């Protein structure tokens, strides 16, 4: 533990709403440096935030903000340099139980040699879910994403949006406690994207699952989330934890045309612009110059 200021300076995050509930995800002083010596790149400087069970949180940040790095750390696919990540109280050291991820690259996250049904079923088989239960879960998940009639198709026979639906069905059938979505709709067309956003809201309502949704699209983050974590540029800290106080019932047309939506959107947009311009929140600005030099010694 060489970095001293991390524990004493929690970011502007952490409002009272998750003060009582035990957080499902607890990220504390997360730091990630790739490589070592002169070639070292500090991707994430200091991230501290918690996610309450059942929350739908969006993470936005300028491109290159280390969003993917953050996700990979949370998913246990990357080792952290410093700090810790706890999921349901357990320290994350490898891919944890009870977590599912929907990747951006739908075309590369489904097994092309398997049918839609087999893709959704495989994780359940590995989880040793009994056959009858498995059948029920897969059927329901595919119905939930509106793909009840393409069981036997291979993913590459479907459109991009449908492939992403299959990936979502696979995640849903897995019955995760936390569902992580990594820019899942960045590569689909605008209309499909709107449909899929509503699908995510609907599934989240129905299943009560915690959702962590990473995106670079500001509107999307405001439309979807209860909360938007805005990241700074690299090395990443949290710019602000924005509470989205829009009504729970959201609609592509009416919600997006409300005054409040526009305000929130403008606010997040401004934050992102500032982040791109290199501005960093007060609490960590001090450590900027000092911290780096200390590390090098």
């Amino acid at each position, binding site marked *: 533990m060489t970095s001293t200021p991390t524990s004493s300076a929690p970011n502007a995050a952490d409002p009272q709403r998750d003060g009582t509930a035990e957080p499902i995800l607890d990220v504390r002083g997360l730091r990630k440096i790739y490589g070592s010596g002169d070639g070292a790149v500090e991707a994430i400087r200091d991230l501290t935030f918690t996610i309450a069970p059942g929350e739908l949180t969006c993470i936005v940040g300028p491109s290159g903000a280390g969003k993917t790095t953050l996700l*990979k750390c949370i*998913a246990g*696919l990357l080792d952290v340099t410093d700090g810790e990540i706890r999921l349901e109280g357990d320290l994350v050291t*490898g*891919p944890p*139980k009870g*977590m*599912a*991820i929907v*990747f951006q*690259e739908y075309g*590369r*996250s489904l*097994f*092309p*040699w*398997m049918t839609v049904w087999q893709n959704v079923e*495989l*994780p359940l*088989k*590995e*989880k040793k879910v009994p056959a009858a239960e498995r059948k029920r879960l897969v059927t329901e998940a595919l119905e939930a994403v509106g793909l009840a009639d393409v069981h036997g198709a*291979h993913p*590459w*026979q479907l459109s991009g949006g449908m492939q992403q639906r299959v990936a979502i069905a*696979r995640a849903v059938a*897995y019955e995760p406690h936390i569902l992580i979505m990594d820019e899942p709709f960045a590569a689909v067309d605008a209309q499909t994207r709107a449909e899929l956003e509503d699908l995510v809201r609907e599934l989240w309502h129905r299943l009560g699952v915690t959702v962590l949704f990473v995106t670079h699209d500001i509107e999307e983050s405001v439309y979807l989330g209860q909360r938007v974590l805005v990241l700074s540029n690299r090395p990443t800290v949290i710019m602000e934890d924005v509470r989205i106080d829009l009504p729970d019932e959201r609609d592509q047309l009416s919600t997006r045309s409300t005054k409040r939506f526009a305000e929130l959107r403008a606010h997040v947009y401004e934050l992102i612009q500032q982040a791109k311009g290199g501005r960093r929140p007060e609490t960590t600005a001090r450590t900027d110059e000092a911290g780096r030099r200390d590390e090098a010694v």
Partner: protein
Amino acid sequence: MSIVRRAVLALGLPVVLVAAWWFATEGSQSFFWPPLRDILGTFAETWWPDRIMGDVVPSLLRLLVGFAIAFVLGVGLGVAIGKSRALRAYLEPVLEFFRAIPPPVLVPILILFFGIFNTMKVVVIVTGCIWPILLNTVEGVRSLDEVLIDTSKIYRLSRRARLWYNILPGASPQIFAGARQALSVGIILMVISEMFAASNGIGFTIIQFQRTFAIPQMFSGIIVLGLLGVALALVFRLVETRILRWYLGLRAAQRGE
């Protein structure tokens, strides 16, 4: 209609070549270049049924056993080497060394170790067939899609499931490319291994005919070899299109977009 078209396309050139051979050698008086008529005339009596059972079948069995062993070893080692960077760095120079040795020159050495019977011949075939399969498998495993690998990890697939559902299918297009090369290498080595200290086999028979100046019979043996190659390639294609149906479909879909 399209089947007829395909048949015409596939058979057109062979028919032309056979006809050309036939007419070019029609009145040939040369002892070493007999008319195709004579070659085909001796074909049936030369090969059916004794030599089919006594030479062609043993040759084929040795080829298939050797190919199967090379396939299992090549894919097994290839997966291990492809997955481990350390193992790759460690083995690469040695692999390059062995790969550069033409298997025929190993025959005398292999005779010392394995005798002159089936074992030696199978080992010769294995030593040749294994390289394309091994190297292609390594390449296939190395180029597996990272997102798919992450997906397998996230859903906590067991090692076995990852091998069976992710690594092997993902590398299968390259594995098949290697196996296809291995098959043609295997046919060559099948013949060569039978040219040394053998008592049966197609290669042995052809050499016998050659040494006894049974020229039409010798040519018929060469034709048998060619036909065998065509038949094996056809069988291979059938298996390949069955197993790689997803890959062919995926590629067609990508081209269509």
